[in-house]
C-alpha cells in the first residue's frame, strides 16, 4: 500500500516548468499553470513523503495587507525593547522589560510585581477572546496574517524568491543537478535565513535585560551564557520552523486549526470559491462564449500562489489559513479575461448558498456569538482597568508566629511575634510608623531596633521590607484566647496608610 501511495505522489507532484502553455489556454495572456495542489485530498497518503511547495508571488489587495501587517508586527517585535521610559533612578528605564532576577514586569506606565501576575492572566484571557471574536467574524485571519509562523515564513519566502527567483525558477533549480550555481544560491539563501533567525532570537533576549547594555555584551561576548543559549534556541526554531518546516507546522503541529475550526460558523467570512459561479470549469479561448459554462478557466493561478499547497476549489479545509492570496491571484485573472472579480472571495457559507439560490447576500457583524465574545472582552477589560487604576502603591502583610502561639514573659505579660512585610511600590524610600489597634496597653518592638524611641520602619524604593515585630500586652487586657487586632502602617511624610487585620493570641481566661 505504501508503494502505491508513493507512486501516486510522484505522478501528482511532477511539476512542469513555469509558463508552459497548456493546450487550450486563454489567449488574453493568461497561461494555465501546471500546478497541482500538493495537499489535495486524493493525493494524501499513508506515511506520505513531504511534497515541496513553491508558492508563486501574488499581487493584489490582500498581499498588500499582508506586507503591511508583516512590517508592523516585525517592527513592533524588533523595536519595542529599544523604547525608553523614565521611571527615576530606582527602576530601569526600558519601556517594556521582563526583569526576572528582580521579579518585575515593566510595561510603559505599568509595573507588575509577582503577586500581581493575574494581570498577565487577564491579558492572556483578553488575547484569547480577541482571537475568538476575530475568528467568528473573519475565520482564521490570525493564521493568515499575524501568526509569527506565517510572518516569518513569509519573510523567509521573500529571501528565497530574491535569490532563487519565482515559482518556475525555483522548481527548475530544485530539479536541477547540483552545480556551482545551485550551491552558491542555496548557500546564500540558507546563510541569510540563519542570519534572520539569529536576529530573531537576538531580539527576543532584549525583552529580558537592558537592551543597549545587552547588545554590547552580546557582541563583545560578555553576555551571560543563558543569553546566548536563548538566542541559539530561538534562532534554531526560527530557522527550522519558518525556513524548513513552513506549512508542516500549521498542518501537523499546531493545535489552533482544530480549535479555531470550532469557532467559525456558516456566517463567518472565510476564503471561499464560489462554485455556483465557477462551475463547470473549463479552459477558455478568446472570443469563446461564456454561455453554459462557469467563470473558472481552470488556470490554477489560485493553486500556484497558495503557501499551504491546497486547491481552494476543493472547499473549506483544515489546511487553509485564510490568507486570501488565492483571491488576489484569481482577481488578476478575472480582470484579464474580462469577468467580474470575486470568483474566490471572503464569503460565508450561508451567503454562497443564498447566492446560488438567487437570493441576495447579507453579512452582519452584530451576530450573537461575536457579540458575546465582545461583551466578555469589555467585562474583562473593565475589570483589569479597574484593578490597574485602583492598584495600591503600598501594601502591608502580617504573618503571625504559629510556633509558639504566644510567649509568657516573666512579669506575666503575653507576647506575640509577627513578621511584618511592607511592600513599597513607589520609586523612593519611605519611612513608616507602625501602630496596633484594639489592644489596650500594648507595647511594640522591632528586632534590631531599640524599643521605646519611636519605631521607624523604612522600606527602600520599589522593594519589600520585612521586619520581625514583637507585640506584648498585659494579660488582663486579653479576654479570650484570641483577640482581633489591626496593624496600621502610616507613612511619616504623606500620611498614606495601609492596614492589616490580625489576631493576638493568649492563654485565655
Amino acid at each position: 500500500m505504501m508503494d502505491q501511495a508513493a507512486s501516486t505522489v510522484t505522478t501528482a507532484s511532477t511539476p512542469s516548468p513555469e509558463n508552459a502553455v497548456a493546450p487550450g489556454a486563454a489567449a488574453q495572456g493568461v497561461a494555465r499553470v501546471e500546478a497541482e495542489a500538493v495537499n489535495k485530498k486524493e493525493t494524501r497518503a499513508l506515511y506520505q513523503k513531504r511534497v515541496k511547495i513553491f508558492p508563486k508571488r501574488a499581487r493584489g489587495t490582500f498581499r498588500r495587507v499582508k506586507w503591511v501587517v508583516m512590517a508592523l508586527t516585525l517592527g513592533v517585535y524588533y523595536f519595542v525593547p529599544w523604547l525608553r521610559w523614565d521611571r527615576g533612578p530606582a527602576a530601569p528605564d526600558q519601556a517594556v522589560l521582563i526583569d526576572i532576577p528582580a521579579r518585575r514586569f515593566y510595561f510603559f506606565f505599568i509595573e507588575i510585581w509577582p503577586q500581581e501576575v493575574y494581570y498577565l492572566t487577564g491579558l492572556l484571557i483578553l488575547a484569547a477572546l480577541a482571537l475568538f471574536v476575530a475568528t467568528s467574524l473573519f475565520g482564521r485571519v490570525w493564521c493568515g496574517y499575524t501568526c509569527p509562523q506565517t510572518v516569518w515564513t513569509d519573510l523567509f519566502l521573500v529571501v528565497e524568491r530574491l535569490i532563487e527567483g519565482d515559482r518556475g525558477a525555483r522548481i527548475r533549480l530544485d530539479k536541477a543537478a547540483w552545480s556551482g550555481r545551485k550551491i552558491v544560491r542555496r548557500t546564500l539563501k540558507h546563510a541569510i535565513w540563519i542570519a534572520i533567525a539569529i536576529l530573531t532570537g537576538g531580539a527576543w533576549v532584549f525583552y529580558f535585560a537592558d537592551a543597549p547594555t545587552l547588545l554590547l555584551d552580546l557582541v563583545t561576548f560578555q553576555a551571560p551564557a543563558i543569553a546566548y543559549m536563548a538566542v541559539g534556541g530561538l534562532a534554531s526554531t526560527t530557522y527550522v520552523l519558518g525556513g524548513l518546516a513552513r506549512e508542516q507546522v500549521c498542518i501537523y503541529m499546531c493545535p489552533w486549526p482544530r480549535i479555531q475550526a470550532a469557532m467559525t460558523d456558516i456566517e463567518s467570512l472565510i476564503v471561499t470559491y464560489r462554485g455556483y459561479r465557477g462551475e463547470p470549469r473549463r479552459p477558455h479561448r478568446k472570443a469563446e462564449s461564456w454561455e453554459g459554462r462557469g467563470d473558472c478557466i481552470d488556470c490554477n493561478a489560485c493553486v500556484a500562489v497558495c503557501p499551504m499547497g491546497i486547491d481552494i476549489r476543493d472547499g473549506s479545509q483544515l489546511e487553509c489559513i485564510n490568507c486570501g492570496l488565492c483571491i488576489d491571484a484569481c482577481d488578476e485573472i478575472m480582470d484579464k479575461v474580462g469577468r467580474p472579480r470575486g470568483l474566490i472571495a471572503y464569503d460565508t457559507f450561508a451567503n454562497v448558498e443564498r447566492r446560488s439560490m438567487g437570493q441576495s447576500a447579507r453579512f452582519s457583524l452584530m451576530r450573537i456569538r461575536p457579540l458575546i465574545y465582545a461583551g466578555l472582552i469589555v467585562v474583562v477589560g473593565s475589570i483589569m482597568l479597574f484593578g490597574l487604576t485602583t492598584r495600591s502603591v503600598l501594601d502591608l502583610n502580617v504573618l503571625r508566629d504559629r510556633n509558639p502561639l504566644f510567649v509568657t514573659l516573666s512579669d506575666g505579660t503575653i507576647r506575640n511575634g509577627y513578621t511584618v512585610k511592607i511592600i513599597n511600590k513607589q520609586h523612593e524610600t519611605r519611612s513608616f510608623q507602625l501602630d496596633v489597634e484594639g489592644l489596650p496597653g500594648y507595647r511594640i518592638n522591632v528586632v534590631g531596633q531599640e524599643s521605646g524611641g519611636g519605631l521607624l520602619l523604612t522600606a527602600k524604593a520599589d522593594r519589600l521590607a520585612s521586619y520581625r515585630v514583637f507585640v506584648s500586652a498585659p494579660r488582663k487586657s486579653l479576654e479570650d484566647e484570641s483577640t482581633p487586632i489591626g496593624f496600621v502602617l502610616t507613612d511619616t511624610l504623606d500620611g498614606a496608610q495601609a492596614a492589616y487585620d490580625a489576631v493576638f493570641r493568649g492563654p485565655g481566661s
Partner: protein
Amino acid sequence: MAAEKHTDDYTGIETTGHEWDGIRELNNPLPRWWLWTFYASIVWSIGYWIVMPAWPLVSSYTTGMIDYSSRALVAERIEEARSAQDVYAAKIEGAALSEIQSDPELLEFAMAGGRSAFAVNCSQCHGRGAAGAPGYPNLNDDAWLWGGTLDDIAQTIAYGVRTEHDETRVGNMPAFVSDETLTRDQANDVAEYVLSLGGREHEAAAAGRGSEVFAEHCAACHRAGGVGNTEVGAPNIADGIWLYGDDKETILETVTYGRAGVMPIWADRLSPATIKQLAVYVHALGGGQ
C-alpha cells in the same frame, strides 16, 4: 494489518483493521518526516544507554562512558556551597558576638545558619519554635536559667549543663526531703511560701513558717525573695515562668526529689562558628538580654 483492506465510507480513509464492537480505527498516520523523528529518538536512546548510566545490574548498574552521577554532582554542589559559605564562616569565627549582631550581612548569615542548626540539633528538646516543654526551657521568653546575654547563651550551648566538661554550667537543686534535710511539713511550708512569692493563693500561716525555712535552705541559691541566680542556674521562682510547672504539687515534687536537667556539650559536635550562629539566633528569638 488486516488481510482485507477496509475503507471508511464517510471519510474515505482506510482503517487500521482494528475493530472493537463494530467501531473501526481510521488510519491517519504521521507525515514521513515526523515518523523519522520517532526512529531518531530510538537511535538516540541507544546512544544514551551507552553514554549515560542506564541499566540496573544485580548489585550495581552500567555506569556509562562519561561517569555521570547525579549523587556525585549533588555532593560537588554542596561542597561548592560550603566553600562559598566559608568566607562568612571565617568572618563569623573571627568576630565577637556583638559584632555579628551589629553587622547586617553577618547577622543575616548567622540567623539563617542558626535557624537550620537549631532545627537539626536543638529542636528535639526545645521544640521547633523553641517554646520548650516541661523540663526544657522556653527560649523565647525573658527568663534565663544561666543568663541571657549573647556570651551566656554561647557558653551554655558550647559546654552544656551538668556535663563532664570543665566549663560546664553546674548547679544543684538537692532532694531536700529524700535526703532528709527537710521534713514533709517543712517542705509543704516552703511550697506555700513560694506560692506567696508569685502573689498567688496560699496559706498565710504555712507561708510564714516557710519563709524561715526558705531563708535557711533555699536563699543561698534562689536569693532572698526568690529572684534566682544565673551563676548557679537557680531560677527566679517569683515570676510567672515555670520550667516544670507552677502548681503546688509540682513545686512540692521539686523540693522533695530535687531537679538536675542536663544539656549536652555541643562544642564537640558543632564548629565554633555554628555555635556563634546558634547563640545569635537564640538571642534574637525575643528574650535576649
